[in-house]
């Protein structure tokens, strides 16, 4: 089945992505769409962490459907990803991620995606990467995806040897800026693309 599913992938990509594990911290607008894109790209092993449930107001930008309302996001996302590729192997953690649990959750992941919504959580995860035990792992984070600015304002920037950040670095989510699917998806696509590039070593450090 996989051979047909990934027929359009560049040569060799499916084999490279299939053997590696990616962790996603937060399964909202960023995390759910990043997971969707990675599974479509042939990533087979994911670790998903979130404590929230799907609500109606998530459906404007997150990879969930009417049927998912009220379910845990991790459970709903697992179901929806299986609709793309039933052969994927997904580990889920229904919990609010505290810094003491981060390494344990993502121990086997080569790349971890920061897909949180609050500044506090984003900072907490990035700060962990100062510890030597993360030196062989990569973090792909996000900052600045709200509002209606040009999609071209969103970029991927390397801020440390093993940390990349995607977004416009400026536009925060609040009542006036809102969260629009197109800009959230552009940022999520930047993150997913960076993950694929890291996993295939198709980038310049």
């Amino acid at each position, binding site marked *: 089945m996989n051979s047909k599913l990934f027929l359009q992938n560049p040569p060799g990509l499916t084999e490279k992505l299939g053997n590696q594990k990616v962790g996603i911290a*937060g399964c*909202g*607008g*960023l*995390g759910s769409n990043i997971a969707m894109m990675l599974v479509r790209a042939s990533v087979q092993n994911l670790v998903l962490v979130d404590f929230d449930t799907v609500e109606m107001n998530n459906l404007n930008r997150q990879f969930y459907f009417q049927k998912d309302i009220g379910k845990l996001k991790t459970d709903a996302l697992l179901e929806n990803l299986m609709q793309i590729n039933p052969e994927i192997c997904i580990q889920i953690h229904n919990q609010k991620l505290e810094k003491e649990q981060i390494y344990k959750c993502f121990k086997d992941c080569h790349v971890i995606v920061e*897909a*949180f*919504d*609050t*500044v*506090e959580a*984003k*900072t907490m995860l*990035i*700060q962990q*990467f*100062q510890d030597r035990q993360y030196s062989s792992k990569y973090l792909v*984070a*996000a*900052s*600045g*995806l*709200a509002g209606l600015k040009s999609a071209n304002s969103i970029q991927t920037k*390397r*801020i*440390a*040897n093993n*940390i990349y*950040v995607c*977004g416009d*670095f*400026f*536009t*925060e*989510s*609040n009542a006036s*800026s809102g*969260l629009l699917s197109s800009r959230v998806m552009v940022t999520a696509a930047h993150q997913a693309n960076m993950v694929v590039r890291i996993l295939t070593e198709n980038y310049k450090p």
Partner: protein
Amino acid sequence: MKIKIEFTSHLQLIGITNHSFVEMDGPKTISQFLTECKINPEHLKYIITTVNKSQVDLSYILQNNDELLLYLPVGGG
């Protein structure tokens, strides 16, 4: 001594231009430097600091020719 500084655009540092070289009168920690630049103390709680592409604490003592990057995430996800 001289350092190169870059910071996310919603940070405001008095007297410092983004993507510029800053002359310093002697070694000081990042925390001391940012306090002198009158950074919003609330931002200090969440700021990520890297020097020459390695993440460091605010207690890091800046050296000549260091490249300091200050990253403050904004909410949304």
